[in-house]
């Protein structure tokens, strides 16, 4: 199986004196569903940032989608990010844009034609049951609905990897279940690799998953 993520002696830090992740070694195969857990401040989100290139490795190597993340050039990083879908706890939707345009964002960036983009957005908004809200703005939707929009956006360009940072952290049980179902669906139906940073792994997951835990700067798999 292809490796989507490979970390070798990966060290992450915001400054020289404070190491967040220390010499971590792990790899993630294509099509896997991964949970990363750990106490607050353990470095879960920091690891996620390094995976989408917002924080470069201080030492060691981190390869995402075949691309070395250490000292990555802006152009190369942009290219890599066009193959990654990201979901955040605070949704990160563009307030000035309609739901439809928000979902279309990765397609516009990747350079899909207008017709293809519209068809894809239509399909995804139907899938997340928000087609009737397409012309509204994010702030007109509930938190659960906004996260479904963020999910549709993350899936729109058929990414090889979905990174989710506490995607259900702000949601009620029902909305959380909808998001888990969408992530599971992306993994099983589209064979997308999914990596979720969370405090709690949901009880009734229908997919096989791997569980990594971060503590005191170390990452280890929980069996």
């Amino acid at each position: 199986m292809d490796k989507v993520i490979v970390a070798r002696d990966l060290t992450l830090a915001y400054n020289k004196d404070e190491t967040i992740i220390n010499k971590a070694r792990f790899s993630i195969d294509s099509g896997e569903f991964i949970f990363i857990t750990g106490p607050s401040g353990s470095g879960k989100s920091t690891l996620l940032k390094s995976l989408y290139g917002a924080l470069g490795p201080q030492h060691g190597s981190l390869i995402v989608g075949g691309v070395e993340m250490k000292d990555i050039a802006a152009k190369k990083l942009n290219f890599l990010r066009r193959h990654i879908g990201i979901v955040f706890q605070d949704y990160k939707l563009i307030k000035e844009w309609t739901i439809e345009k928000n979902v279309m964002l990765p397609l516009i960036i990747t350079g899909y034609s207008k017709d293809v983009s519209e068809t894809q957005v239509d399909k995804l908004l139907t899938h997340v049951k928000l087609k009737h809200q397409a012309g509204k703005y994010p702030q007109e939707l509930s938190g659960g609905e906004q996260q479904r929009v963020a999910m549709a956006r993350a899936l729109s360009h058929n990414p090889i990897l979905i990174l989710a940072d506490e995607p259900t952290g702000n949601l009620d049980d029902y909305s959380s279940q909808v998001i888990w179902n969408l992530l599971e669906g992306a993994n099983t139906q589209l064979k997308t690799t999914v990596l979720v940073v969370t405090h709690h792994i949901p009880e009734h997951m229908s997919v096989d998953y791997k569980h990594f835990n971060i503590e005191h700067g170390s990452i280890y798999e929980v069996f």
Partner: protein
Amino acid sequence: MKSFKNHLSLITALITILFTIQVFIVVERSINAYEENLKNDYSIIVVVNKNLEKKDFLKIDSTIESAEELDPSHVIDSFKDEMKEQNLKLLKLTLPKFYRVRLDHYPTPAEIEKVSKKLLRHPMITRVEDFARNHDVIYKLLLLFKEVSTLFAIAIFAVTTLLILKELRIWQFQHNERMNIMALFGAPLWMRSAVLFRLAIVDAVLASLLVNGIFFLVVQYGWLQTQLKAIGIAVNIYVLPKDPVILSVIAFVLSILLAMLVIAGSKEDS
């Protein structure tokens, strides 16, 4: 409504800046027109023994623009009743020549003194009347106008800078989030900035259209020009096509500069 709100803050700032600049241009033109009036009204009277040509005067000092001989007949006419015809003829022959010398700009008191001295050094010139005392008062008044105008320019610059800085903060706040989100999905810099430049160009067009429209109406209505004419200043408040071009260029340059500063100052969230 949403889109209008996005545009309003920059359009307001741009309109303020453009309006102030055009007012400053009008003030400058009025001062220049006033200075031109003063220059036209001011002349030095020179008394000469023999005829001098215009070129002789031009050789004396480079600031001398023209020299015209004054007709002495009204002086001679005033003696008509008191003197005999023969004496009047003799007087006409012996009377020195009077010349009105004009300069190419409105001179400073020091320049007047310099020109007067140079004129007096000429062997044919016996007397020079430069009306220095009157000139001094008027010159000080002009200097005051110019100083006020310079202060006004400095105030415009300060206000403009403050408005741009304020606008820059608003834009950074408004656009940084969107630019960051676009970056997360791999948008190149030009794509992230495109919205900003589009907004800047649209706002520049709207602001310059509005300000140009206002000044066009002011000219059509004619009230301001009437007021200026009443104090002897004939000045164009809005010169076509020079003024709309100046205002539009300033609006474009300012908003593009603003957009570039926002882009340069935008940092990706980490």
